[in-house]
């Protein structure tokens, strides 16, 4: 079985093989090291002229890649830890995401910035965060987050084919998750909602990023919708199975892979049936992604929404110590506990 890491690595190989305009830029990318999390493994050997290992210059690098994208190439930037994305925030927000619109649609910026987020590895306050919420809602910036369903590599390849900037959020623990086969998901009914799987590169308002809905096969109607992305979607899937078998609480899980801009429709379709929504994220609670999910569901359903909650990390820095970190970040047990309180 393929891991998410293998799928992403394979996708980069495929994308670079297919298009000589694809470049990979980042820190410590050269083999045998192949990047801090090994997503770049083998690429500098296969494409020595197109893997540019760089000095520690996140702002300079993302800006430089924007310039390359403006002038006919398709750069992919690896930011070693998602926490370092703040160093390139100006380049993403005031440059890459702005150019097309501000220049009256006369230019395109086919740039992908990939970065691993997330904790549970004891890296402490500045190497464990999920900072994507700070970039969500930036006009002109698509934010994607693969999960361990479907084809994470395909999502990356489509992002590379796109003509506008994409922030591609990976999760450190998701890397080692194996992509389950149909047999692994035998207890579950998986629906893939793919708004436009055949989207041509550069299609503006369309998305190629799928959403997934999981239900317990043959179960009574669900009374709660879980919404998650990235690694939290993996944990929510575990929670959903346990809730069904151990507590006889039946839920549906909606997984989004496009965080911004996004349509709430797949979530609404589920909550219209269940009446309840629990938004689950690894980032800190306040002003987060879950708040946006709940707000949009509430606005659409009004009094038909029976209950809504968010589950997220504590509004605190992430501690290095294992037990403290475990208390800070939401896990499967926390999802089960939150779900039980809602039904």
């Amino acid at each position: 079985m393929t891991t998410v890491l293998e799928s992403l690595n394979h996708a980069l190989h495929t994308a670079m093989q297919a298009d000589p305009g694809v470049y990979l830029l980042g820190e410590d990318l050269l083999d045998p090291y192949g990047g801090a999390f090994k997503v770049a493994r083998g690429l500098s050997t296969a494409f020595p002229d197109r893997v540019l290992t760089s000095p520690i210059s996140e702002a300079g690098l993302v800006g430089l890649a924007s310039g390359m994208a403006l002038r006919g190439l398709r750069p992919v930037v690896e930011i070693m830890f998602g926490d370092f994305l703040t160093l390139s925030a100006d380049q993403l927000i005031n440059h890459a995401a702005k150019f097309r619109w501000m220049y009256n649609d006369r230019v395109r910026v086919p740039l992908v910035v990939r970065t691993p987020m997330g904790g549970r590895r004891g890296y402490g306050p500045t190497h464990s965060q999920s900072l994507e919420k700070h970039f969500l809602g930036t006009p002109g910036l698509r934010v994607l987050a693969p999960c361990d369903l479907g084809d994470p590599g395909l999502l990356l390849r489509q992002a590379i084919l796109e003509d506008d900037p994409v922030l591609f959020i990976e999760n450190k623990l998701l890397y080692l998750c194996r992509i389950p086969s149909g047999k692994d998901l035998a207890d579950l009914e998986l629906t893939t909602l793919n708004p436009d799987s055949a989207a041509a590169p550069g299609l503006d308002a369309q998305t190629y990023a799928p959403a997934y809905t999981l239900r317990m096969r043959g179960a009574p109607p669900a009374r709660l919708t879980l919404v998650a992305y990235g690694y939290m979607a993996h944990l929510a899937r575990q929670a959903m199975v346990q809730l069904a078998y151990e507590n006889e609480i039946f839920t549906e899980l909606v997984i989004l892979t496009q965080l911004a801009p996004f349509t709430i429709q797949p979530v609404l379709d589920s909550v219209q049936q269940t009446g309840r929504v629990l938004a689950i994220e690894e980032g800190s609670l306040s002003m987060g992604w879950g708040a946006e999910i709940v707000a949009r569901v509430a606005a659409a359903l009004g009094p038909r929404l029976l209950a809504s909650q968010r589950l997220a990390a504590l509004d605190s820095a992430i501690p290095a110590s294992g037990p403290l970190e475990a208390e800070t970040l939401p896990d499967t047990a926390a999802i089960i506990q939150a779900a039980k309180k809602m039904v």
Partner: protein
Amino acid sequence: MTISVQDPSAFYRALCRIRSFEETVLENFPKGVFFGTTHTYIGQEANAVGVLAHCQPQDIVFSNHRCHGHFLAYGGDPHALFAELMGKSTGVCGGRGGSQHLQWKNFYSNGIQGGITPVATGMALAERLQGHSPVVFTFIGDGTLGEGALYESLNLASLWHAPVLFVLENNRIAQTTPVDIAVAGNMAARFSAFGIPAQELDSSDVLEIYPLAGKLVDEVRETQTPRALILHTCRFGPHSKGDDTRSEEAIERMKTQRDPLHLQAARVNDEQSIQIRSEISAEIAAAFQAALADPFPVIHAVAGSSI
């Protein structure tokens, strides 16, 4: 816009066009015809004209908040620039960008100090990697020297052989902050520390700026590696509008000693210079009036926002 040194009137015309444009902007701002703010180039005209006289069609220009002079010297249309400042649909960017955010042909500008330098470096690198031999002209100011992104760019441009000409226009004041309380150490050493050869010139004379810029442009074009040109210059006007904290005497002294138009006018006969000023004045006035009459744009959907 390539200009030959053989023709002093062509330089004079280019200098006058920028001056006349900027004076029209300042004169009409209080009337409420423009949106937002503006940063005029009065006093610095010889830099844009002398440097961009070497700009060839495949070359790229990345400018900053004070970009009108660069845009006009590049060959940009004064009518489209007025219209952009007025937020009209006929503006350079259809009114979306305003004074600081222009894009036309291979000309780009953005209003974030230092942020443009890595982008310009990446453009230069991309062009070189695709087998082209351009020069990317990147205009920065003394104020930009405080931004870290600049130094990351210099390092990357030098390491990866990006054909950039960094043009540092030191007008000795960043908004209201003079260089002596904002810039420590040596300006040229900032570039040479990264292995980027730098040349300095303290002049407002287009005929001094032009040959030095030409030498550096040729070096960038031939070697496809970066160079820096430091032009010590004088900004006669305020940073934007009515925010000049310098003494009137100091500004008058600059205008008397360092006016690039006066310096170049001396090389053109009186009759010719009067005619050029009159033609430019009519051209700019017509551009302004045409822009005034143009329609405002209507908002349309922002790509990607509807999903």
